[in-house]
């Protein structure tokens, strides 16, 4: 028989209808959903072997032990490495997102390295008798700091300047039964967070500050004193002025002060933080042994305080910002510079610091790109040595700060970290704690090479406890208030110490919620007359900067809480007077 077209059509039509009664076409329809499920522009996470790598967080001197979950070599998540005798496996919000830092929008990507080097050399050559070549190191007592000191010793009129931090004194929280803190964020990033939290059950915390900070809210007692009246309270408690006067000055009740004084009497040892006016009792503040350094390094420039330099005397200034630390207001630095074109080089990874002022900004590696050691934290009684090891490659354009300075001073470039490690190994004191296996071994039982390997694979050297360590004083108290610039501006500034710049993901904490105060944000009492989230201008005698307003009934009227970003620190310190006006 021959098939007609009609029959073919019928067959085709019939089978088409038939197919509709099978799952096949419907299944296919379901699968078409996939294309609407893969919206364009969404990055696909790279896959690969998952493994753990260890390092130490170098975002602050706490240097918490870090366990990095890596895909291949790329860290995708950080967490505290457990069992650590100091950091106790804790990691703060900033540290948890540390692996984002290489990609932050404000990253310095390249800079005029040759020009800067030439300018520095030129400056050193031009340096007159009463002029100085200065290296400003925001985080002293690192191995790199030693390089700077040696370099500054090598150049004519070289000076090594750091913010006023005494690294030879340590706080022993474990000894204290009462901690009286004048605005020190004891439980909010001060010292080694893990250590503070671990020690917390051991002491009664009395927090004296104008605003109920996170620490104050966790404290056993919060004293709401007038901003800037910390010293008055201290004097009152020290009996240097009458309680009445202290009450007058601080805005507290007289009996409150009396009761407090009595408490400090009974409930010692007392650790006083944030004021050098009042004695700590017991051996809560002790002097700490220096982490050993090679003998040949001892020919180093002394640590100079910026204030001790005459104004208009700095010809060459090299600022190492690679390791965040205490920020000195630019105004204070500026007046030390010579009038006729001084050379200022900032070695920074973020454009938001001194890079805003220096004429040469050179890119440097950032955590976790670069190797470097972290000096012991203030609450670490024993000296320590731990490395922040590179987890991701550092961009080519970046320079190594210590090499730059060494080169400028004509020092040979050597592997200083390794030399220091060997020096420590030679001293053969203390123990080595390794993160992967959370074991500690006596250093003397470890070979030098193994020590070095261990340090690079995530390890920490902790000095032997030193029972004979003499009690000491925090001559320059941590985060002690700078003098208040007098003015008739209506508000009194209270700085909240947020670590900036951080990962963009930290927007969760301030932009996408109001948990913390974001960079360039101010918190005011609802009665201030501005709306929540309003754009405003923050103004002090030293200048103004744009800010966003957050209303918080927890802020007493007349106070303004500002997050301490470099831009703000250039304008004011805690206790300064300011005003916030509409943009």
């Amino acid at each position, binding site marked *: 028989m021959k098939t007609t077209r009609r029959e073919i059509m019928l067959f085709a039509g019939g089978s088409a209808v038939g197919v509709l009664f099978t799952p096949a076409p419907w299944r296919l329809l379901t699968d078409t*959903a996939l294309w*609407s499920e893969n919206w364009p522009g969404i990055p696909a996470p790279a896959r690969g072997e998952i493994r753990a790598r260890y390092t130490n967080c170098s975002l602050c001197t706490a240097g918490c032990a870090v366990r990095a979950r890596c895909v291949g070599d790329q860290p995708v998540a950080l967490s505290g490495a457990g069992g650590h005798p100091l950091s106790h496996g804790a990691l703060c919000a900033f540290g948890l997102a540390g692996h984002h830092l290489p990609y932050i929008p404000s990253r310095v990507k390249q800079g005029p390295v040759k020009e800067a080097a030439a300018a520095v050399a030129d400056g050193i050559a031009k340096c007159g008798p009463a002029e100085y070549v200065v290296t400003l190191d925001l985080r002293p007592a690192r191995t790199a700091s030693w390089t700077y000191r040696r370099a500054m010793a090598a150049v004519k009129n070289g000076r090594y300047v750091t913010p006023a931090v005494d690294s030879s004194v340590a706080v022993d929280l474990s000894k204290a039964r009462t901690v009286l803190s004048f605005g020190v964020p004891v439980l909010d990033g001060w010292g080694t967070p893990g250590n503070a939290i671990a020690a917390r059950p051991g002491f009664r915390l009395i927090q004296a500050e104008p605003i109920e900070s996170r620490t104050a809210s966790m404290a056993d007692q919060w004293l709401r004193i007038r901003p800037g009246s910390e010293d008055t309270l201290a004097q009152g408690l020290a009996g240097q002025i009458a309680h009445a006067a202290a009450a007058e000055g601080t805005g507290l009740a007289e009996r409150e002060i009396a009761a407090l004084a009595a408490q400090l009497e009974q409930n010692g040892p007392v650790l006083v933080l944030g004021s050098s006016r009042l004695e700590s009792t017991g051996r809560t503040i002790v002097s700490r042994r220096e982490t050993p350094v090679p003998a040949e390094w001892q020919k180093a420039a002394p640590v100079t305080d910026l204030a001790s330099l005459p104004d208009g005397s700095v010809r060459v200034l090299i600022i190492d910002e690679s390791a965040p630390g205490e920020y000195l207001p630019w105004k204070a630095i500026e007046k030390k510079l010579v009038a006729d074109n001084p050379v200022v080089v900032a070695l920074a990874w973020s454009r938001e610091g001194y890079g805003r002022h220096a004429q040469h900004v050179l890119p440097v590696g950032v955590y976790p790109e670069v190797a470097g050691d972290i000096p012991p934290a203030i609450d670490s009684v024993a000296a320590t040595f731990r490395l922040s090891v590179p987890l991701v490659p550092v961009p080519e354009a970046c320079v190594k700060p210590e090499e730059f300075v060494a080169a400028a001073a004509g020092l040979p470039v050597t592997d200083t970290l390794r030399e220091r490690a060997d020096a420590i190994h030679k001293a053969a004191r203390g123990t080595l704690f390794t993160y992967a296996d959370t074991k500690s071994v006596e250093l003397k039982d470890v070979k030098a090479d193994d020590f070095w390997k261990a340090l690079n694979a995530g390890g920490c050297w902790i000095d032997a406890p030193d029972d004979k360590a003499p009690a000491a004083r925090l001559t320059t108290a941590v985060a002690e208030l700078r003098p208040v610039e007098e003015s008739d501006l209506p508000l009194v500034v209270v700085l909240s110490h947020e670590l900036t710049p951080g990962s963009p993901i930290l927007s969760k904490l301030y932009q996408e919620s109001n948990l913390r105060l974001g960079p360039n944000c101010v918190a005011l009492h609802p009665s201030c007359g501005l709306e929540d989230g309003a754009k405003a201008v923050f103004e002090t005698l030293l200048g103004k900067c744009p800010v966003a307003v957050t209303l918080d009934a927890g802020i007493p009227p007349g106070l303004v809480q500002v997050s301490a970003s470099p831009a703000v620190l250039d304008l004011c310190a805690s206790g300064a007077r300011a005003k916030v006006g509409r943009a």
Partner: protein
Amino acid sequence: MASPPRPVRAAPERKTPVDNPLDNMDRHFIARGAVRCSTPKFLLWMAPWAALLVFGLYSAALCLIKGLNQTNMDNRFAFGLWIFLDLTVIALGAGAFFTGFLLYILKLDELRSVINSAVVIGLVCYSGAVCVLAVDVGQPLRAWFTFWYPNVHSMLTEVTFCISCYLTVLAIEYVPIVLRNRKLRQVPSFLVFEFELHKLIYVLAGVGTFLSFFHQGSLGGLYGVLRGRPFAFREGLAVWPSTFFLFIISAAAVGPSFILLTTWLVQKITRKRLVRPEVLQLLGRISGSLLAVYVLAKSIDTLIWINRTSPETGFQAWQYYSWKPFGTWILVAEIGVCGLLPALMLLAPKLRRRTGWLVSGAFLACAGVALNRFVLTVQTLALPTLSFDRFLSYTPSWQETGTFLAVVAYGVLVYSFSFRYFQLFPQERELKLEARQVEEERELVGRY
């Protein structure tokens, strides 16, 4: 026979007016004998609405292309102006199904003179609502998932299914109205299809009624089931919270009112008699009686909610009304001023006979239902549930408002177009002739 026939003879010669070619450009599309304004005038009327529509479409496009960040909605105010619009518009559009139900199922033949208009209104409202819904969701391309992976426990699924089905039904009901157009009906197949389809229209009316009952209800259920939102949560029968039934009644009540309102408005705008006043009064009466039932049911429901449902979830009812500006006044306005009052106005035959009362009654009824939908959507979301949470306020962005206006403009355009070219009010010609008869009689009385 009103008057004896008199001979027809030449009236005094008049100059034939020079007629503008535009005037009768589209006259062959306009039903014979129906007086409509000139084409330019019509275009002039349509232009601003068209402009508004274009603007609205632009803002909607922004929301679709750039995403819903264009709106002022947020995680807490997950719904805004649009949901309010949807609920209200659909309630007002209920006239279509309810009139159809009364006419074709209960054979209330007087309503034949408004059914076409009702269908158009229904179509406008529902299609508008569906379009806005499509903009309102974050992933419109996945709309079909609701049909593909339906969660039959979700009120929203019920709504989606019913509304899309009912929209189809409305579209089909609209076809005969279009095909009756003078020009189109000259095409034999159109003529015949329209004729045959119209014979089966009661089937569609039945289906439409069924669907409408369910989705009007499930729109109410939408909020009534939110046990996490004690302000909206209601107990009910089986799977349906009380709001389910309240919405059905209120929609049925307000539908006729809205038709009454629009018809009156069209009559005012076009300066024509389109339906007999009795029809409007009938609509008023239906609306009034249902509204009365609704008010009663709503009051009982509210009392139960205040005294049982809400306290059981740990929320004292009074506290909802202590958040300014949503004081108890809103409750009074909803049930009293815009519920009981119009019900009485529409039920009293004396008042009903006065157009002023009739229309304002209808208007209040519509306002009341709109307010009810507003309360259920916006107030529900504004109230905090967590003790450490704040009371929220929300103002729609211009993109949202634009999209909202687009729906209004679209409605006016479609209705005006339909009114011009289709027979929305079959009685129109008849009434015109009647009017003339009356005139002539008057004239005769004057003569003898």
